[in-house]
């Protein structure tokens, strides 16, 4: 308990807005990779994951505008209904911003237990929109991607925090 509190309070450098933009665009391109077959079935939505990460870590810098805009881009790239991802990501951003103090209090394992339901809710919103628009339920495999995304959460946290970790000063004794 003690050790975790010390680790959670390590002082990080401020994040650069350019880095946030870079990670969001990178996640978007990863989503655009030509996934197929089994990989497509378990592919997490990387944009949703990164948007959620930044809404939890930097709710003052990343919020509804980014979530909604990238949602629209995903809609065009997927050829799906205009606004379905935008709506789902907005709700995700809302959940991230409202819960950001709470989620960061927990250990990594408990953070995953917060992230997976949020991403599943994201999937459910898209599913509900498509059902209303007349599509069929594509099977429960549809939800696997969000569980995989939850498993990727610790990796993502470690990766995106790298530029913020201060370099040890060699002159400091």
């Amino acid at each position: 308990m003690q050790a975790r509190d010390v680790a959670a309070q390590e002082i990080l450098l401020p994040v650069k807005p350019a880095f946030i933009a870079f990670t969001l665009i990178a996640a978007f391109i990863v989503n655009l990779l030509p996934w197929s077959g089994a990989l497509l079935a378990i592919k997490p939505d990387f944009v949703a994951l990164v948007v959620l990460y930044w809404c939890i870590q930097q709710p003052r810098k990343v919020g509804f505008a980014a979530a909604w805009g990238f949602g629209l881009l995903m809609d065009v790239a997927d050829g799906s209904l205009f606004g379905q991802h935008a709506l789902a990501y907005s709700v995700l951003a809302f959940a991230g911003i409202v819960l950001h103090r709470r989620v960061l209090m927990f250990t990594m394992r408990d953070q995953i237990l917060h992230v997976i339901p949020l991403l599943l809710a994201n999937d459910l919103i898209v599913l509900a929109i498509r059902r209303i628009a007349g599509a069929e339920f594509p099977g429960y495999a549809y939800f696997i991607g969000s569980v995989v995304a939850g498993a990727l959460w610790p990796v993502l946290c470690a990766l995106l925090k790298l530029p913020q970790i201060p370099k040890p000063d060699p002159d400091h004794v």
Partner: protein
Amino acid sequence: MEYSPPPFFKRGPAPLTRLFLCFVLSVALLISDARYKYLDGIRQVVAVVLYPFERLATAPRALLGRIGEFFVTQSALQTENTRLAEQNLQNAATLQKYRALAGENQHLRELLAARERFPDSTLFAEVLYTGRDPFTRRIVVDKGSQAGVRAGQPVIDDAGVIGQVTRVYPWLAEITLITDKEHAVPVQNLRNGLRAVLGGTGSDGRLELKFIPLNADFQNGDRLVTSGIDGVYPPGLPVAEVSNVERNAAFLFARIVCRPLAGVASYGQVLIVNWENKAPQPPAEEATPARGKKPRRGG
């Protein structure tokens, strides 16, 4: 307003307010897209902006493919060469027969003043990626309106029909596969000429004949070709093979499952057929009050 808080406490509207704003905007977009199709222009513009990203994302796979080609063994090449030579011989024989028949056929058709039935030209396109939307079955190819692709054109590969072009961007085109849930192809049984409608099921490699009476003559292994009565697909293109017939007296219709002949789920090259329906248009609605079924989507 000297009572307003200092600027560093200003955070703009509350999250709930912003969420509500986003919600209203999204729902407005959803309705105008799903119901009224107003947003195709915006979609085109955004798609052009996204084009470099899509090419960037598909580049690694193309590169891997080229590296893989570089390391092909000689024995594999030799085997393939032998196989191709044999196939070429067989094809040559068939082709000669076909040429004679085509000449004869054309002559007869000219005599009958019948219209040409077969597609004139095809456009070669490469599949960039399969659609990521899990609710539909689509692929995206690397030719668009700049190459003369139009929405509604049929798409085939070397074995049969794959689908039809449903959305055209300047350098990309989206093809709805015949396995899509909302797609239907009018077909004809090659063995006995029975006409039917072949619908997708939403899962790869599985099609179903719709509204076939229990006593209709369909058997396993029957080949289905396009009948051409929809004006979208030219007649005579192979589509599917019947793989399972289930007749249950409890239901009104037989359940006939088919397997697509074309490589619907595979990556590779496709041909976009440049075909214009030269059949006379049906008489206008006013002349004959519509009593039949409502027109099918996509078929």
